[in-house]
């Protein structure tokens, strides 16, 4: 149910944005609105965390796991792009072409 809701909301937004792109003024309001919803969401998420003593107690452990996940995610990306694009199959010549075409 939530999955459908997520895709639906995003899809509606993309369609609106593509066919009726906001002007400068509307864009400013859009970003203000996004900031407000972001603050509300994060505060609510924080409150859920704060109201749950067992998760608060595990916060150090969660933080440690987060650093390990982030480290592997970042290193994995660098290794994949370095070996795959900068040194590998799609070597510099090809990626260089992308840049030349852009020029």
């Amino acid at each position, binding site marked *: 149910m939530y*999955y459908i*809701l*997520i*895709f639906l*909301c995003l*899809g509606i*937004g*993309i*369609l609106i*944005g*593509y066919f009726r*792109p*906001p002007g400068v003024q509307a864009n400013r309001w859009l970003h203000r*609105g*996004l*900031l407000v*919803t*972001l*603050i*509300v*969401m*994060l*505060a*609510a*998420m*924080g*409150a*859920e*965390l*704060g*109201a*749950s003593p067992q*998760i*608060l107690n*595990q916060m150090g452990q*969660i933080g440690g*796991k*987060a650093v*390990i*996940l*982030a*480290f*592997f*995610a*970042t290193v*994995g*990306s*660098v*290794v*994949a*792009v*370095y070996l*795959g694009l*900068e040194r590998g199959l*799609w070597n510099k010549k090809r*990626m260089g*072409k*992308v840049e030349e*075409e*852009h020029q």
Partner: protein
Amino acid sequence: MSIIVLLAVVVGGLLGALLLPPEAVANLDKIIETALCLMLVGVGIDLGSQREAWRRLAKMGFKILLVPLFVVLGTLGGVIIAGWLLQLPLKEATAIGAGFGWYSLSGVILTKLHGVETGALAFLTNVARELLTFILVPVLAARLGKLSAVATGGATTMDSTLPLIARCTDSHTAVIALINGVVLSSLVPILVPLLMSL
């Protein structure tokens, strides 16, 4: 911006721990859900209206998509190893990795879909990824290669880490970084729930 994010979570945490009655806490889920839907519509409008980036993407052809594609493959490969080390379920580890540094959205989507503990882990993981990007971009751009520097940032290369990438590399790489960020940002709200549903 980072201070606002941190303040919102900490103030919310204090409210939840000290002030809010249990009935209010029970309603937090509804608030998150409504705010998330509103935010996704807003994010969609933002992504859809990036016509310039989409046009450049079409002009440069599919080759440019190799950068975000390899970032996706590398990120998922990395978090699969990390998840195995940490004994996290595969779908959880990959869904968290698919935040690609966009901590607010991935944290809230996973709080909604899988509970606040996974949400908190996704939030912190992706905050850490952004911080790591700020540290690594200058080093990687100088030592390894410009695209490798872009790879660290994931979805953040379209906004928060773009100025740093532009400074440490060149304008062509900055355009690649922008497109990489737009493509990965578009993938976050699609891949996170998709991987979690596997």
